[in-house]
């Protein structure tokens, strides 16, 4: 249904090449995971050699990196940040907390599975994932982009009602007052 390798035109291949080699990351440092971003970007692991660079605002970013657990309070902001990003956009869930809640699995105010609220393209598991694992996750995302399979944004738009319903379940007052899509 989404475009796969066989249906790519030449334009798509060129654009995907550029997208793949120029990932601007908005690191949303929610939990403790943000501590691993600094060594990933600086001299020792040097993510910039793969074209991965920090972006300052959601408008300029391609990748939303959710580093750690998300409380109900931060989900509100993360959804807004994600919707302000420009297409094509990707989400990387970082650490166990985004997959099953991690050590906060039974917390009353922490979401357990990020994929119910935002379309996640790549998960990096571990608590904490080391910088090697982070770079491996980015390389996986690059592979998906070059194959035309990183379609999180399209998935979000198609299933917007489902995602919005899930978001409204955890913070009903906030998401009912919020606009349907934060441009």
């Amino acid at each position, binding site marked *: 249904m989404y475009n796969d390798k066989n249906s790519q035109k030449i334009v798509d291949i060129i654009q995907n090449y550029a997208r793949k080699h120029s990932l601007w990351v908005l690191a949303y440092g929610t939990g403790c995971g943000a501590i691993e971003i600094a060594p990933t970007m600086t001299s020792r692991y040097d993510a910039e050699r793969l074209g991965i660079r920090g972006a300052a605002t959601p408008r300029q970013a391609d990748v939303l990196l959710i580093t750690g657990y998300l409380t109900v309070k931060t989900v509100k902001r993360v959804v807004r940040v994600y919707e302000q*990003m420009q297409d094509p956009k990707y989400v990387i869930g970082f650490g166990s907390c985004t997959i099953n809640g991690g050590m906060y699995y039974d917390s009353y105010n922490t979401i357990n599975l990020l994929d119910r609220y935002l379309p996640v393209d790549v998960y990096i598991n571990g608590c904490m994932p080391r910088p090697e694992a982070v770079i491996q996750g980015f390389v996986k995302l690059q592979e998906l982009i070059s194959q035309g399979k990183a379609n999180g944004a399209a998935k979000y738009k198609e299933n917007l009602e489902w995602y919005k319903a899930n978001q409204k379940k955890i913070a009903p007052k906030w998401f009912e007052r919020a606009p349907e899509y934060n441009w």
Partner: protein
Amino acid sequence: MEHILIKILGAIATFILAFIVGMTYGGVVRKITARVHNRLGPPFYQNFIDALKLFSKKTAIHHGVMHFLGPAFLMVSSVVSLMFVPVLIPGGDSWYNSWFSNMIYDGDLIFLIYIMVFGSLGMALGAGQTGNPNSSIGITRGLSQMVGYEIPWVLALVSLMLMYKTTSIVDFINVQQETGTWLMFANPFAFIAGLFALMGMFHYSPFDIIGAPAELASGPVSENGGKFLFTMMSSGSVFSFVKLTLFVDIFMGGASNLVVLVIKTFTLYMIPVLYGIVSHRYRTEQAVTFFWKWPLFFGLLAVLYAVL
């Protein structure tokens, strides 16, 4: 008719040259910065990939008409100032020389001083309409810093105008060709003041207070993504080429062919870049007061040297 066609083709060729050289310099600077940090760094063509990616992004941002016009103003200012700056020595011997003689006989330094500020002012209006507080702070900082470096820059140029009784850039190149002395040696104080101003113009550290990502979320461009950012990036590359070429024309005797041009501009470009890599960031008032101390002193000294 044929004359006009050649002019148009020459203008396009000049723009393509400026774009390619400016973007490549930007990529090389990223590589050099990485090597200084003991990193591998991105490839030198990384900026082209970034530009292509930005261009192929969809853009759904709307903040009003002025917001759309801001990047356009930047681009117009860069291209117009490119048209009035002699890329190569007019009447030189290389076969492609006539391509780059766009409108160099029609403008002069005073016009360029005005038109080079036009882009920043248009950008300030455009960023102001986004309503993002980071943008507004960035604009305030940028315009304050501009007040700082414009004064030594204008003083340096005025001293040369007084010295040779001309405002035409072509005349400055011809003077250097006839006497055989570069103006950086004929009036060293003007060169020093101009060099400080150039460091301010390039916004590398310690003068990167406008787009400081950690403080201001990249300042005036914080609300711009995708194609807006592509326009700004390419106009910034063209504009840095313009500034370097103008400086080479005035102080370093111009260039007779493209190889010499690249060598001279790259050497000049390394001064703000290499100083920027190893230095910290100034605060706004520190940057302004810096420009009003030693660069201003050298600028006044240059004027005195020219008059006496």
